[in-house]
């Protein structure tokens, strides 16, 4: 279809290793620390939520942007992470930070286990399978024979983590900084994964599945591993979220969460890891923005924010069809072009063989079915 016409080098994804990633990380950390000591508790709560979404989005992007598989059910693994962590904390007294690696491990297993059979499906069928997972998850969490552990629909209360070692921080600052550290670490891991042998196999499978298999890439294994890694990220995000919110319930993980994650990934930019920060900011703050925007329509407009949100969403995708990262890259390329014209010595870096080059084509192809 027309999607083929849309392939342009957008949202390049392989980190530019030569040009050093340290400055970006350092800038993010400094910005985060500055925020931690200047923002109010409520805002820190929101920012922490942004970072948690970012972690989940990075995982989803590894799966979709780099491996070309669609998941409409990422919220389900977020839920497993959240519930798992809550159960560990509430029933088994496990320290909250310990739940992160445990849930990472468990969710990897869950994702791998689900991915192994499901990834034999492609495109639409995979979309259905994962969508079904997202829809049935609240029902499973609510399953009456699990009530003793899950607390049924009234959910589970969790004690929010306390600030350790008498650090001069309050609880919100501490949680925010923990989320910041986790997000940066998970981002760093993702960047390295993408640049590794496995990462190249992932991308190869996305772009030329048959060619990749001919070259000896074990398709089923790599795809399922990738699904597992995506689930791992969602699980870590979910576990952090349970600690931050201090509460889990089936209604926390409705299908809306999965859709929001999908929205965040696409708005952020398919195939761009830093773009996930933009995507996370979008899904955390734009609904609130829409809310205050629709307040202008008066009292009866209580239900209207989501219409406004929908319009915002369409508008931003019109402006940036390849997500915010894609748009930023276009601007950067444009500026570099100008600079190159001004001083011919500077050759603009080509975003050429980047991993995010052809998500459009691949997704299109898989959507057509096998």
């Amino acid at each position: 279809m027309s999607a083929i016409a849309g392939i342009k080098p957008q949202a390049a994804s392989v980190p530019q290793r030569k040009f050093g990633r340290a400055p970006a990380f350092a800038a993010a950390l400094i910005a985060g620390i500055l925020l931690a000591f200047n923002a109010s508790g409520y805002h820190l709560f929101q920012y922490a939520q942004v970072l948690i979404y970012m972690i989940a989005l990075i995982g989803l992007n590894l799966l979709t942007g780099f491996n070309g598989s669609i998941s409409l059910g990422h919220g389900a693994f977020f839920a497993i992470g959240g519930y798992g962590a809550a159960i560990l904390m509430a029933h088994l007294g496990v320290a909250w930070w310990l739940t992160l690696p445990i849930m990472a491990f468990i969710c990897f297993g869950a994702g791998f286990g689900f991915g192994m059979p499901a990834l034999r499906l492609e495109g639409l069928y995979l979309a259905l399978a994962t969508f079904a997972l997202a829809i049935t998850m609240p029902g499973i969490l609510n399953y009456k024979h699990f009530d003793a552990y899950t607390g049924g629909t009234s959910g589970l209360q969790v004690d929010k983590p306390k600030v350790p070692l008498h650090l001069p921080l309050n609880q919100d600052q501490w949680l925010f900084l923990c989320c910041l550290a986790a997000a940066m670490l998970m981002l760093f891991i993702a960047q390295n994964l993408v640049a590794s042998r496995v990462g190249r196999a992932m991308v190869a499978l996305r772009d030329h599945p048959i060619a990749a298999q001919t070259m000896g890439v074990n398709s089923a294994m790599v795809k399922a591993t990738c699904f597992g890694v995506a689930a791992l990220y969602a699980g870590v995000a979910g576990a952090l979220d349970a600690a931050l919110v201090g509460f889990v319930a089936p209604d926390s993980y409705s299908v809306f969460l999965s859709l929001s994650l999908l929205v965040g990934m696409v708005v952020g930019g398919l195939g761009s890891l830093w773009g996930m920060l933009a995507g996370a900011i979008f899904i955390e703050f734009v609904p609130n923005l829409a809310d205050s925007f629709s307040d202008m329509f008066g009292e009866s407009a209580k239900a209207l924010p989501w219409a406004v949100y929908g319009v915002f969403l369409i508008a931003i995708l019109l402006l940036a069809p390849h997500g915010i990262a894609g748009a930023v890259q276009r601007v950067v390329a444009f500026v570099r072009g100008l600079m190159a014209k001004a001083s011919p010595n500077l050759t603009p870096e080509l975003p050429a063989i980047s991993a995010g080059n052809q998500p459009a084509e691949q997704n299109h192809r898989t959507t057509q079915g096998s």
Partner: protein
Amino acid sequence: MISRRELLATGAAATVATGATLPALAANAPGVTATEIRIGQTMPYSGPASAYGIIGRTEAAYFKMLNAKGGINGRKINLISLDDGYSPPKAVEDIRRLVEQEKVAFIFQSLGTPSNAAIMKYLNNAKIPQLFVATGAAIFSDPKHFPWTMGFNPNYQAEAAIYAKHILANNPKAKIGVLYQNDDFGQDYLVGLKSVLTGDKASMITKTVSYEVSEPTVESQIVTLQGAGVDVMLFAATPKFGAQAVHKSFAVGFKGVRYLSNVSAAFPILKAAGLDAAKGLLTAAYVKDTSDPALAKDAGYMEWAAFCGKYMDKNAVVDGNAAYGYAAAQTMAQVLKQCGNDLSRANILKQAQSLKDFTCATLLPGITLNTSATNYSPIRALQIQDFDGAHWKSVGGLIHS
């Protein structure tokens, strides 16, 4: 500046969260000025429970009416009602915004079991009243563990217990089939039934079937109940599924007695199910059936209709949820009136604990609200009603639980 936030945020602090710089006693709560009282609330204006959004709108309209009349003790009421989409994490975020940004004095009528459960701990730690929560789950009437959280609705277990007593009195050999929503709401009815039907009576419940809110219909479940040969059906269902159950049980020719949970018993819902199909239903009510023309001369109804005419749209008159919201807002106004000039959080809670035989315009005659330091369930009596094909008619006297 951090110290204050810290207190609010950690909530672990034992000191009153009204601000470290103010003396702890006798100080008014944040959000209270000489001219205004700020109140916060979360409501599902969007999402799966948006049908209840009208409760928040009615309450806002009620306070608007009060303000037009001069407010309470000279103060205007400013209800800040935020949409949580029935999502607990969103409710937590909203509540933090209300408490920390908007500086509300307390939380009133936040709706939904999961949302209230999510914010209960935070509010209790910070000693902020969470008053008259809009859910009938029993966990919100537990003054021993959550002294700052108070219920409003008669709880679902008590309602179910009343049905069970009614069944025992009228049909002691009944074979009961239960359709329940598979969440706290529905499960509370089962618990309530079983609390009365104990011992050899327990076997009276011959078949229970559940449904998930994500399903399109409960037709299959009703067929199953009918197939199990029950002669009493109890539908512990929310409106859409309640209407389907009423319709389908009629369509498959069920001849026995049917009980319908009162959240689904509002007239517009029965109209959707078909008035013929709804004939003979029983429910335990506390809100007036405001669609009943027999009420035309009732003082409470006239007050309600006049209010709707001026502050709501015309369809709200017959909406049971709106009538419910009116009653809750009236109760809240009464508590604030009792507070007089001492609007500290402690006194607001104390006055909420001190309702004596308060009556609301939209609640059934005889329904009075009473609270104390140990009784956090304001409404304890219910009225069995029978649907005659056009309106609900009370049968017998009030039943106290």
